[in-house]
């Protein structure tokens, strides 16, 4: 992927000395209902293209939509969990625009009558709590998925041809739109990430979606504008589309702050436009310029009757809400014996779910936490992905921990095993076997190595015999080297001291 020209950026700190950012986040969540929003087609992920379609989701002439009650229920539960008001009566609306992956060339969505509105979600960053206002959470349908073949960018322009898979068309979506977010500039990228993370935890806790960003089940658009310090009027915004990992949310926000600042600082003007985020480069490029707001010619969907959830039903659904993520996390923090601050680190690393699953698979909490926020977080960062996207399962991590505890792996060997799993070499046990990483616990084999090391380091051996135990490290090091790290260092130490006492 090539980017036309290098973008001028202002340093992050410098940008924030001069400007304050205002953000707006739009998150689309695919509901995990069994059937689509307006027809009874299945929603399973990964089916062969165009096998989960019918006249309605293909938009064939004469077909009509029927609202999926389970989707409305999911929408209301999300609204309630976000402390929103739930509309007494609301309608769907048609959002009219032409696009090949949209079967009817209008999207059945909601416009001025969303099912949920006016709520909030609290997030924590650096030990500080921020309340993110929720403007609305409305129901709509997903579009099909285009694949543009040929051309340099994978986008429609310049492609040789395009393929459309309508399996995704009509999957229920909830679009959650924040009110303008104004936080201290240097925290803005972290707050954006924390919000999406928190929202993801909430959606999962509700059980309404797996919210897996790598599968597009949760997608984020980042709206950002800058205004000079002291100015109250909002600046012109850019809308960065489909920012599809937690890490990218943070990076895209940061990048856009720096890009806007550079344009404004040089006396330029920000164009209102859609931008694309590039995962690999961590940059955004211009998509469609929206000098005038696009006219979607919204009007109430005449093929559907209004949705009027009874108050009894809404209250009944309120009763089904799970423990709030905050309470849930407090409980876990207490169970694990860690501070709330440490817990926030876990959450913002996007690792909470993995850690819980690893503990469920039998690992002690401190070990599970150590692996996911340590080694695995480091690798994820190196690879530029979220920890949840690493090709290692919580069960595999638990197995590695089990091998350490059984004395069959040292920490150092365990890291090699994990490296093997991440490299696709198979299960931990398979990696241990294939790489021959078992701890050398056979004393006779060790003693042979120790004797060889003593012979090679006679002077050091004499010092140890004379009572200088600090020197024993040299011999241990030599033994570890000759056993390629597979010996248990503590046992080696015991044996060396035994030999030389």
């Amino acid at each position, binding site marked *: 992927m090539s980017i036309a020209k290098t973008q001028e950026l202002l340093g992050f700190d410098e940008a924030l000395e001069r400007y304050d950012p205002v953000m707006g986040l739009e998150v689309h969540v695919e509901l995990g209902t069994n059937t689509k929003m307006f027809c009874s087609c299945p929603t399973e992920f990964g089916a062969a293209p165009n096998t989960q379609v019918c006249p309605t989701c293909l*938009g*064939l002439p*004469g*077909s009509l939509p*029927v609202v999926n009650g389970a989707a409305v229920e999911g929408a209301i539960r999300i609204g309630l969990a976000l402390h929103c008001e739930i509309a007494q009566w609301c309608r769907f609306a048609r959002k009219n625009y032409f696009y090949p992956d949209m*079967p*009817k060339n209008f999207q059945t969505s909601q416009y001025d009558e969303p099912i949920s509105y006016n709520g909030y979600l609290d997030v924590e960053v650096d030990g500080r709590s921020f309340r993110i206002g929720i403007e609305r959470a409305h129901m709509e349908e997903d579009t099909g998925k285009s694949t543009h073949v040929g051309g340099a960018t994978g986008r429609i322009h310049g492609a040789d041809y395009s393929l459309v898979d309508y399996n995704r068309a009509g999957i229920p979506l909830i679009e959650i739109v924040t009110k303008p977010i104004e936080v201290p500039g240097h925290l803005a990228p972290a707050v954006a990430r924390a919000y999406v993370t928190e929202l993801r935890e909430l959606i999962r806790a509700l059980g309404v979606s797996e919210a897996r960003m790598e599968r597009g089940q949760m997608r984020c658009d980042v709206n950002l504008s800058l205004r000079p310090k002291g100015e109250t009027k909002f600046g012109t915004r850019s809308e960065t589309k489909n920012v599809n990992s937690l890490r990218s949310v943070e990076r895209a926000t940061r990048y856009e702050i720096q890009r806007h600042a550079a344009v404004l600082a040089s006396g330029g003007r920000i164009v209102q436009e859609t931008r694309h985020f590039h995962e690999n480069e961590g940059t955004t490029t211009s998509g469609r310029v929206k000098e005038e707001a696009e006219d979607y010619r919204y*009007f109430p969907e005449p093929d*559907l*009757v209004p949705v009027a959830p009874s108050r009894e039903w809404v209250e009944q659904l309120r009763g089904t809400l799970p423990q709030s993520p905050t309470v849930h996390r407090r409980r876990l923090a207490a169970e694990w014996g860690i501070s709330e601050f440490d817990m926030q680190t876990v959450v913002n690393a996007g690792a909470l779910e993995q850690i819980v699953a690893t503990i469920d698979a039998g690992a002690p909490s401190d070990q599970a936490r150590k692996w996911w926020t340590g080694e695995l977080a480091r690798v994820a960062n190196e690879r530029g992905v979220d920890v949840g996207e690493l090709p290692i399962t919580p069960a595999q991590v638990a197995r590695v921990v089990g091998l350490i505890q059984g004395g069959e792996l040292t920490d150092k060997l365990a890291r090699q095993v994990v490296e093997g799993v991440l490299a696709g070499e198979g299960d931990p046990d398979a990696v241990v076997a294939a790489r021959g990483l078992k701890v050398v616990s056979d004393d006779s084999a060790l003693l042979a190595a120790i004797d060889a090391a003593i012979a090679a380091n006679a002077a050091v051996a004499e010092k140890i015999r004379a009572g200088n135990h600090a020197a024993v490290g040299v011999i241990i090091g030599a033994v570890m080297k000759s056993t390629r790290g597979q010996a248990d260092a503590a046992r080696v130490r015991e044996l060396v001291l035994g030999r030389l006492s």
Partner: protein
Amino acid sequence: MYASGSDAIRRTAADLAAAIASGELSAVEVTQAHLDRIAKVDDKVKAFLHVDAQGALAAAAAVDAKRAKGERLGPLAGVPLALKDVFTTRGVPTTCGSRILEGWLPPYDATVARRLREADVVIIGKTNMDEFAMGSSTENSAYGPTRNPWDLERVPGGSGGGSAASLVAFEAPLAIGSDTGGSIRQPAAVTGTVGVKPTYGSVSRYGLVAFSSSLDQGGPCARTVLDAALLHEIIAGHDPLDSTSIDMPVPPVVAAARRGADEGVRGLRIGVVKQFDGEGYAPGVRQRFHESVELLAGLGAEVVEIDAPSFDHALPAYYLIAPSECSSNLARFDAMRYGLRVGDDGVHSAEEVTALTREAGFGPEVKRRIMLGTYALSSGYYDAYYGQAQKVRTLIIRDFEKAFERVDVLVSPTTPTTAFKIGERVDDPVSMYLADLCTIPTNLAGNAGMSVPCGLAPEDGLPVGFQILAPALQDDRLYRVGAALEAALEDRWGHPILEEVPAL
């Protein structure tokens, strides 16, 4: 009526069904007689876009087999029917009178088509129509106009001119239409047939290719009120596939038709709509209409005049709402998945192919309405046009409510004039739109309407339609009044009106 046993094509649907059930005629014989008639006269009339001889004969044979096994047959089993080409039929071409759907074979049946098949009605073919049901003369069909059998130089009305003409040409005893602003009733009026727009939501729209979703309604077309009632009961009823479908029992329209014919309208309160009379109405239309009102009064109905001032604004409101919805409904015709595709040469982009296809595939009236609707929904204009039209709609609903507090039904001429000449109004869209002046309020209000023939205008000898309007879900009232008027007029004339249609 048409009791000559030898000539199956002139018999009523009720009569044919009885003949088939008794074994007097086989369903295959009846179907073949109609296929022969189509082969003989449709070159002149052009009522059909597609004749499904094979499918029809197979369906008829199945009915005969059922009878042979002693299975009970439905009230219209084995009777041929002409289906407006706006309803999808599985594996049978469905064009909506448009080039853009040329060659499309729907993979599914409209609910109306499914119900007809389940009732063993024989779908004999698909009838011509104004493109996407936009028009009042069937001249907007991409496949050429249908001609009115009363005078082949004249239009059969529209958009369902094909369905109405097929009845008058004795090509089918039953037909289905769709009525968005009068497309069933106005052709019925100018062809001397019966056409009913049922209450919105009582006949499923699933598989009815949408023109204006909040107005479209399928309904029966027939030569007699009783035949229309029998057909009405087959196609109406709740459909879970249509969210706007009403989950209520179908009103007893067949019983109402029988009662009207037997007992008349004594004690019924009839309101004559003040707005639909006077200037712009042909003298013969006024004369036949008022004679009919007097006839009903003579039968014991109580007649009053009803003032419904909002009806004056119905036409402009309609021409904002219907085009707005159509601009969105017709967006799906983009050459991506079905129908016509123009310019797919590896050079043009997808966007260009869509534009070229729509340019080539839609006729001028469809384009006019898409543009009107696109404009009316545009930001900055929405409130002034679409929003304002919705307010008028509310006023019309209120005027109906007020009227129906005083009377059981409202009546008016169905159309201001009799059938006009082919080509006469094609260059003047507004005069064309006026043909639906009296029928539009019902669509905007969502209640029920019928056109029943009330004679021939003295000045041109062409049929005049008498419109009856009833509150939502009181469709049975239409049939009671319609059948009473039909019986009284036939008594007066000594024969059904279609006896006077010139031979083709």
